[in-house]
């Protein structure tokens, strides 16, 4: 097949010798870093199989692709800086993987020499597990800190615990004996601000005072958060998941996963959550965990010098992040697989599993929720669900899909507005305004004044005899002899109706505010607000169905299961299904979402309704637009992310996409030994291409290799400084043997070591489907196009993204990065 030929063509010249000496298939895939006997000349004589293993000398040059050199080139030392990447550029996956295999081979070959080398090789093998353990520990610890601090600061808006200032409301009243059944959170140690400032606990004056203090605290937390972000770490804002997705696909954003970003994200996340804004902390926790992973990977040379290996650690770290955010370790691994990672080999699966485990363990031992459970929304009911309930579940799925589509469109429109018009010039003011509006509208409604997690928990909890909130104000039949679990369906009391009204208002409020809140310049997550919206909708539907079943229990659909006195409908289950549907509608997750929700709630009986609702919401959402919220944000920012989920189905050929086009200037190339240092410097200065193909001569246009701009610049600069005799008119030689030069000419500069000898090539008639597939599967940045064996043009990842945008009728100029 054509694609197989591609693989072999690029590898033949260099890897033939390794074929005779290779022990495993792996080495066939190594285009670079392959041990080559110095006797072979690169053009012909491929069959010169003098592959004597004992005489290979490998000289790695900054770890990049090279051939082995012999005594003549022993003078070449590795040039520092070659093999690294610029900010906002894509890495070369193939090169990084080859570097890693080379390093591994070197360590293994030295293993038998001494005990020290043996220890080093063991350390190298185990360093992966060590990094992942440290990441899990750090993520768990930071998540515990964030949870405890956020709980405390959220309650700080209401009042303060006088006997122990560091307790939040629930902890303050923990040991008190004055709590009553109806008012479970009143105790004398907890004083609201009105009580402290004006001395009254009840009455209109104290209500207004509480209102004012609530708004004051919300605004000051929001202002603090955005100023800290602006002054110390601007990369700490937003959710972080779109950028992490892009980083994991090979993009470099320097500083995005650094120490300051970590610290500021942790601190300001607490402030943002405490200020009552309609955001969650799950997405930012993934970013925090990835920062930890990145920081720890710098301690180990195996990971610090290799960008591809580092991304393995980051995949595991994001699993740890979700694991501590939700208390869902398995859901975290699946989330990393489905949503965040780009390449996910089995090794990464094990590492993610381990990281999630360690993080969950640490969080549990810190025990932030005081109930020895990681699970936030533990549901304790086990009532079965009935077949006719699938209809309202599917309806909830449709609602989730519709809401997801609406939210994505509205949020992207608003973010685009913010990006291009003057709305975006005042980020601090924007945050303050959003926080003010949220605080002003949220306070009067008891359901929005609550912390969103508390709201979700209350909605998930079914109404048993032990509940006394207004949502559970049913008209009880006093003569009922049933106890505890099996409360039959009852008619709703006035409390329930007023609760439904308040919930409707809360739903509308949350839907509108979340559109404006996601994307402001403080750490903001999306999971909890979506789940809240879904839970509210679900609970309303659940109560409606429950009342319908009670008042019309003789209808056909209810007759079989819902007799009088039976506990038929559990509205809490509907809330759970609604939450899953909304979250699925906006992120378009499937398996990982179901696993996360049932790990969150412990409701294993309800997997089928969850799956039904999630599938429905995904189908409905996909009918309006294929992208989830994170892919939409990636496209908004123009990141060079080649989505593995999209299919490219157009019939264009490589010749249609490659550059140069007919009207463009010819391809900027380097010749093997005809150019001088000055020529190359001029070429680099005049053009802005990231790399240049190297050909044998302008007449033959036969391909030798590919040289990157950054590597050329660094190599030439260091040669000018360190090697003597290199001037502007020195010849640059990419070949193995320098050409014979007249005696007075300056010393030639050998740059073969920075040349990529195995660039990937396709012919101009290769269908673009295959080219896109190659880019995706191998993680390429560029691919050369040949025609009848001669170099014709180049296709870069940016060209592909632009082409895909064009064929999908989107704006190709929005692709910003390489």
């Amino acid at each position, binding site marked *: 097949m054509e694609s197989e030929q591609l693989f072999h063509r690029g590898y033949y010249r260099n890897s033939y010798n390794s074929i005779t000496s290779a022990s495993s298939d792996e080495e066939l895939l190594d285009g670079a870093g392959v041990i080559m006997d110095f006797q072979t000349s690169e053009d012909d004589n491929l069959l010169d199989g003098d592959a004597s293993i004992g005489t290979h000398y490998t000289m790695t040059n900054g770890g990049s692709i090279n051939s082995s050199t012999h005594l003549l080139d022993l003078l070449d030392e590795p040039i520092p800086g070659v093999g690294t990447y610029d900010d906002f550029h894509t890495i070369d996956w193939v090169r990084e993987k080859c570097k890693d295999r080379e390093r591994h081979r070197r360590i293994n070959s030295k293993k038998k020499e001494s005990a020290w080398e043996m220890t080093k090789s063991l350390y190298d093998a185990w360093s992966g597990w060590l990094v992942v353990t440290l990441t899990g520990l750090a993520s768990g610890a930071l998540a515990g800190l964030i949870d*405890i601090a956020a709980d405390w600061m959220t309650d700080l808006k209401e009042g303060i615990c006088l006997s122990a200032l*560091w307790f939040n409301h629930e902890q303050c009243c923990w040991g008190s004996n004055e709590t009553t059944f*109806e008012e479970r959170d009143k105790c004398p140690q907890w004083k609201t601000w009105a009580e402290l400032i004006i001395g009254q606990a009840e009455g209109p004056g104290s209500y207004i005072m509480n209102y004012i203090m609530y708004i004051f605290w919300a605004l000051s937390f929001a202002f603090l958060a955005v100023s800290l972000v602006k002054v110390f770490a601007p990369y700490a804002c937003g959710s972080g998941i779109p*950028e992490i997705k892009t980083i994991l696909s090979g993009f470099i954003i320097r500083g995005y996963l650094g120490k300051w970003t970590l610290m500021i994200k942790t601190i300001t996340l607490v402030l943002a959550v405490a200020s009552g804004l309609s955001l969650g902390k799950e997405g930012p926790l993934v970013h925090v965990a990835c920062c930890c992973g990145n920081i720890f990977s710098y301690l180990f040379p195996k990971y610090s010098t290799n960008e591809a290996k580092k991304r393995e650690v980051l995949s595991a770290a994001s699993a740890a992040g979700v694991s501590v955010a939700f208390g869902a370790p398995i859901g975290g691994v699946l989330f990393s697989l489905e949503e965040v990672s780009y390449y996910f080999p089995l090794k990464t699966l094990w590492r993610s599993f381990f990281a999630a485990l360690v993080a969950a363990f640490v969080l549990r031992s810190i025990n932030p929720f005081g109930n020895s459970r990681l699970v936030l929304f533990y549901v304790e009911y086990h009532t079965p669900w009935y077949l006719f309930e699938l209809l309202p579940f599917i309806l909830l799925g449709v609602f989730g899909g519709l809401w997801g589509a609406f939210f994505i469109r509205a949020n992207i429109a608003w973010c685009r507005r*913010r990006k291009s018009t003057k709305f975006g010039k005042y980020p601090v003011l924007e945050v303050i305004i959003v926080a003010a509006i949220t605080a002003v509208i949220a306070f009067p409604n008891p359901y929005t004044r609550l912390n969103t997690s508390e709201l979700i928990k209350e909605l998930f909890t079914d109404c048993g005899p032990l509940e006394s909130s207004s949502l559970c104000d049913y008209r009880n039949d006093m003569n009922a002899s049933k106890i505890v679990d099996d409360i039959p369906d009852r008619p709703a009391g006035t409390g329930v109706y007023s609760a439904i009204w308040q919930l409707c208002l809360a739903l509308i409020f949350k839907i509108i505010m979340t559109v404006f809140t996601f994307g402001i310049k403080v750490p903001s997550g999306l999971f909890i607000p979506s789940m809240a919206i879904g839970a509210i909708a679900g609970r309303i539907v659940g109560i409606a169905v429950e009342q319908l079943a009670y008042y019309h229990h003789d209808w056909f659909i209810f007759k079989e299961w819902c007799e009088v006195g039976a506990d038929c409908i559990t509205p809490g289950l509907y809330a759970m299904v609604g939450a899953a549907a909304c979250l699925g509608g906006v992120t378009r997750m499937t398996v990982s979402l179901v696993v996360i929700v049932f790990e969150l709630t412990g409701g294993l009986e309800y997997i089928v309704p969850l799956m039904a609702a999630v599938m429905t919401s995904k189908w409905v959402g996909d009918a309006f637009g294929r992208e989830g919220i994170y892919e939409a944000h990636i496209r908004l920012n123009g990141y060079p992310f080649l989505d593995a989920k999209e299919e490219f189905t157009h019939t264009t050929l490589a010749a249609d996409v490659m550059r140069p086009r007919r009207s463009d200037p010819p391809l900027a190339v380097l010749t093997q030994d005809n150019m001088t240092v000055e020529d190359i410097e001029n070429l680099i200065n005049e053009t802005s291409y990231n790399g240049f193909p190297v050909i044998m001569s302008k007449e033959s246009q036969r391909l030798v290799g590919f040289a990157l701009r950054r590597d050329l610049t660094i190599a030439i600069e260091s040669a000018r400084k360190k090697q003597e005799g290199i001037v502007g008119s020195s010849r640059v030689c990419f070949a193995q043997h320098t050409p014979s030069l007249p005696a007075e000419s300056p010393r030639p500069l050998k740059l073969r070591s920075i040349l990529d000898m195995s660039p990937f090539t396709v012919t101009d008639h290769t269908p673009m489907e295959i080219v896109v597939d190659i880019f995706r599967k191998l993680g390429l940045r560029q691919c050369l196009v040949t025609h009848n064996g001669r170099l014709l043009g180049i296709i870069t990842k940016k060209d592909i993204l632009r082409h895909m945008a064009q064929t999908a009728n989107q704006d190709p100029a929005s692709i910003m990065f390489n």
Partner: protein
Amino acid sequence: MLFTSQNSEDVRCKCICPPYKDHSGQIYNKNVSQKDCDCLHVVEPMPVPGPDVEAYCLRCECKYEERSSVTIKVTIIIYLSILGLLLLYMVYLTLVEPILKRRLFGHSQLIQSDEDIGDHQPFANAHDVLARSRSRANVLNKVEYAQQRWKLQVQEQRKSVFDRHVVLS
């Protein structure tokens, strides 16, 4: 501030008993061990007479809970101290440092920096100081060099995120 953070205060058994006949609902808390966490040990004084105790207790739900108030206290203190330090550093960088630099180096060498909230450029003079401090090489200047380099990085980030909106919009 009371230092009553003994471990015995951090465990409790919480029993919630719903309304029964003409008794209203009640919540009982008691500091007992896990094996004693049930209705008979915790609900005192028992509001119902002898024969009704079983019916009453069947409706009650008792849960054993424990927490660590020391962890909570330490965490909040750590968090607030880090927040306080960052706040102080922020105030220093945005307000105090420009004033000090202006006094030391004179008005003319300071690059224009706006002081209003909407357009903060606290690291505007980082380039200057960076160029100057390259020449000296003792420890204090190394620290200052690192700090100025960090400020440059943050300024670059700020430009990408807030001004040009190329990342994280």
